[in-house]
């Protein structure tokens, strides 16, 4: 029996829908008061009335407690249907097994199954977004995660595609419009009321955004960890950053990280950043990015923080294929240059490739086959860069890094009912509007897509 079999069996003894992540994991979008445990259920609103009495309601909402009740009573909460679909239609383990098997979950099984469903529980794996303040407005992002997007949409409205892309109306209607950082935010206030107690039990804490280095609360967290007389030395700390903030902030961040690391105040410290391709094409996708400055900052951190790993999260999209091989070359160069045996993770830098599903007009699925084949070539390049067998070298692309790029190609060429023509039309409308609003020039930046673009435009007429 595998570990997963054992874990599933233990969970099933409690109930057919039991999943520890409902207690042990949380993502808190404090900038708009939403929460969910595990990324599959749609985030739900945290009632202000609940956090007034109980700051842990940022995680322990009455809504979530009712789902826990179902789990403890041998029922399957409806919001977790992603896992039920997997379990009912395949022999694979669902994510409830994987997440419950994690080191931040499984050790707490006995404790959790003995709890009353009404009990508050301190999560071990916490992701938090304090603010949507961001100096970028990436093509695939939204007002929910970028204040720059909010500004643009307030000024020009949503993008007139086959639907009103990135409009603010539905955010307002669903109560998801983010607080401005300058406004009083009761969710952030509750977080700080809870934090001293929460911190003590944390296994993993990850700050996302917006751009976390532009959120004052990120700095407050770093200062707390750097100064507290009783540090939680088991903590795995992660911070997302676009590495495109002013240099003085990068310097300050490195200074604080250095103190935390050198005083062994955490178990590990990992930095997550983003990049989807190379040079000016990357700058087009991530509007606000200075690509060369980004690379300088990556190298600066790898040099100054010799224990830290940088993970580049790459949301691979229709504009990524043409320079991705150069990004792979650079990552390999940095892996080699900055490898050492002190890093928390094996590699100095990782390229974590994921495919973009939303917005669909930027999906790789809209591309022609010749462009999709470039993804396969990138995957092969990463494969050549993989850590070779039977050698003493330990730098190189990991199996996971390689497989994720190959998986992306498989996704790109798969036929799953994706509406190609509709999304191609939306793509052209999108880049036309994007260029007008942002002063960019799509055809100059992506000459490889000139024919593709023109053919769609001609059809549109």
């Amino acid at each position, binding site marked *: 029996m595998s570990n997963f079999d054992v874990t599933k069996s233990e969970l099933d003894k409690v109930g057919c829908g039991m999943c520890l992540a409902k207690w042990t994991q949380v993502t808190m979008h404090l900038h708009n008061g939403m929460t969910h445990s595990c990324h599959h259920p749609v985030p739900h609103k945290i009632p202000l009335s609940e956090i007034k009495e109980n700051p842990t309601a940022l995680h322990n909402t009455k809504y979530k407690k009712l789902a826990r009740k179902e789990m403890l009573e041998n029922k399957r909460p409806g919001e977790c249907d992603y896992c039920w679909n997997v379990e009912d239609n395949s022999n694979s383990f669902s994510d409830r097994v994987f997440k419950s098997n994690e080191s931040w979950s499984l050790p707490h099984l006995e404790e959790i199954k003995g709890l009353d469903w009404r009990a508050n529980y301190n999560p071990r794996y916490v992701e938090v977004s304090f603010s949507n303040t961001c100096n970028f407005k990436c093509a695939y992002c939204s007002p929910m995660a970028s204040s720059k997007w909010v500004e643009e949409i307030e000024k020009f409205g949503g993008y007139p595609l086959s639907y009103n892309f990135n409009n603010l109306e539905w955010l307002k209607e669903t109560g998801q419009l983010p607080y401005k950082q300058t406004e009083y935010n009761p969710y952030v206030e509750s977080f700080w009321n809870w934090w001293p107690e929460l911190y003590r039990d944390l296994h993993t804490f990850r700050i996302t955004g917006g751009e976390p280095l532009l959120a004052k609360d990120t700095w407050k967290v770093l200062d707390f960890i750097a100064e507290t007389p009783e540090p939680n030395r088991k903590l795995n700390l992660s911070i997302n950053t676009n590495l495109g903030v002013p240099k003085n902030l990068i310097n300050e961040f490195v200074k604080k990280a250095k103190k935390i690391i050198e005083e062994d105040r955490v178990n590990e410290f990992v930095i997550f950043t983003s990049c989807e391709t190379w040079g000016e094409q990357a700058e087009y996708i991530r509007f606000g990015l200075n690509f060369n400055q980004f690379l300088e900052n990556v190298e600066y951190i790898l040099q100054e923080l010799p224990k830290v790993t940088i993970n580049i999260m790459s949301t691979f999209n229709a504009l990524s294929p043409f320079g991705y091989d150069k990004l792979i070359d650079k990552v*390999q160069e940095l892996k080699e240059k900055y490898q050492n045996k002190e890093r928390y993770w094996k590699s100095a830098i990782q390229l974590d490739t994921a495919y973009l599903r939303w917005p669909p007009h930027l999906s790789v699925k809209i591309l022609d086959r010749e462009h999709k084949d470039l993804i396969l070539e990138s*995957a*092969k*390049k990463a*494969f*050549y*860069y*993989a850590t*070779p*067998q*039977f*050698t*003493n*070298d330990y730098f*190189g692309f990991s*199996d996971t890094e*390689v*497989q994720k790029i*190959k998986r992306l190609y498989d996704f790109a060429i798969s036929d799953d009912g994706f509406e190609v023509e509709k999304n191609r039309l939306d793509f052209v409308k999108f880049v036309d509007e994007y260029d007008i609003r942002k002063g960019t020039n799509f055809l100059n930046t992506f000459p490889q897509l000139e024919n593709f673009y023109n053919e769609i435009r001609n059809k549109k007429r």
Partner: protein
Amino acid sequence: MKLEIKKGEPWVMWPDLLVGNFNDFPANKIFDHKGDYVFTIEFELVEQITDKACLFSKLPSYFGVDLRNGGITLTYSEKDKETDYIDANYNWLIGRKYELKIEKKEKNVILTIDKFQIFNFKIENDLKEDSDSHIIFGAGNFPKNGFNLNYFNVILYSVKIIRDSEVISHNDFEKFIHGKSYDITGNCNFIHKII
């Protein structure tokens, strides 16, 4: 271009378990193939052969070619039989490029050097197959195993593998990426040094 294999520093075609993601039939399994195939290796000797020198060996079920002073040996393993070998005389010259070709057609195995037939014999059963086959160049075993090594200095110019009638791998040693020879078929059947 060329691949200079130094004595005691063999190379291996055993790309990685991931190669299965990139092609349906990894070339390191060619000697497991029940159909027809052609394995061609172009090489040059840089010194006089005194002891047995292993040009290449497929493991773990053995299939390989050893060069001797004045001769050549092909060792092979059939299913349900002991490992066997076949010998022939051959006068090797230093600094000369050779093309050694092993062709399997149904149950016939033919070995030629520069189109001159050296061996032609019939196997009764299929050759032994393995789940984790690999082909070592310049040694008869992994160095860590310490036996049947038969190292020597040799230069490889090309390793080309045809399965049925399709070229599934061709390393011409023009290009290397991260210490791996580039397979110009695009199938990622690279060859790399064992350290």
